[in-house]
């Protein structure tokens, strides 16, 4: 838990900034000229989401969110690898 008011306010402001970074990152998902651009942007958004969940764990003061972030990182890795394989090979398996 965070006791001091200064650190809690700073963490909340940084959380707000991280969430506001999601909107310009999703621009590349919509306007990316190729599939690999969109995949890279989705990977970037997932990485930002991991940071946002960790900041949320700081604000809430619970440890459960860190486990959620770990699960999200694992599934995002598998998804990115499989879609990259689909781009290069034309099939996943």
């Amino acid at each position, binding site marked *: *838990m*965070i006791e*001091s008011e*200064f*650190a809690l306010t*700073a*963490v909340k402001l*940084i959380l707000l*900034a*991280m969430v506001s*970074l999601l909107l*310009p*990152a999703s*621009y*590349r998902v919509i306007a990316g000229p*190729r599939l*690999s*651009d969109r*995949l*890279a*942007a989705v*990977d*970037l958004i997932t*990485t*930002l989401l*991991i*940071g946002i969940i*960790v*900041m949320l*764990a*700081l604000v809430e*003061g619970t*440890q459960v969110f*860190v*486990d959620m*972030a*770990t699960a999200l*990182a*694992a599934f*995002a*890795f598998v998804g*990115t*690898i499989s879609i*990259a*394989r689909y*781009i*290069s090979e034309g099939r996943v398996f």
Partner: protein
Amino acid sequence: MLLEILGVIALLFGLFFCAVGVLGVIRLPDTLTRLHASGKVATLGVFGLLLGAALLMPSTALRLLALGLFVLLTSPVATHAIAASVHRRREILDELEQDPAPPEEEAEEEDFQVDVTAALSRSRIQDIIEAQERALRHHQPDIKRPGDSD
């Protein structure tokens, strides 16, 4: 208090690299350069955020360390997979562009064919001229069937 100040500084470090990575993904011109920018978010940005969170909340430092090691291992692998797929796709496209390289041989063949047809038409024209001369000699201006008059 010192730990909290250090933690907020680490969080600002991570936020700065996240913002720079998002800016690079939006602004850079090529797919590979955009991948270069988003790789910085994965390593420096999120690792700075996790370091700041571990400094601010030391009870979860072990879980945050595990998550940081996992991100540090898997995210460059994912970025490399995307870059390799882009590279392989480009190689395939280059091969497809180089495949119609035999147009030179085709062009030579076409020239040869053009020569043959030109020679054929030349001989045909000579045949017609000879038939016309023969017909004029025999006062029979029938040039449609020149072989009959002989």
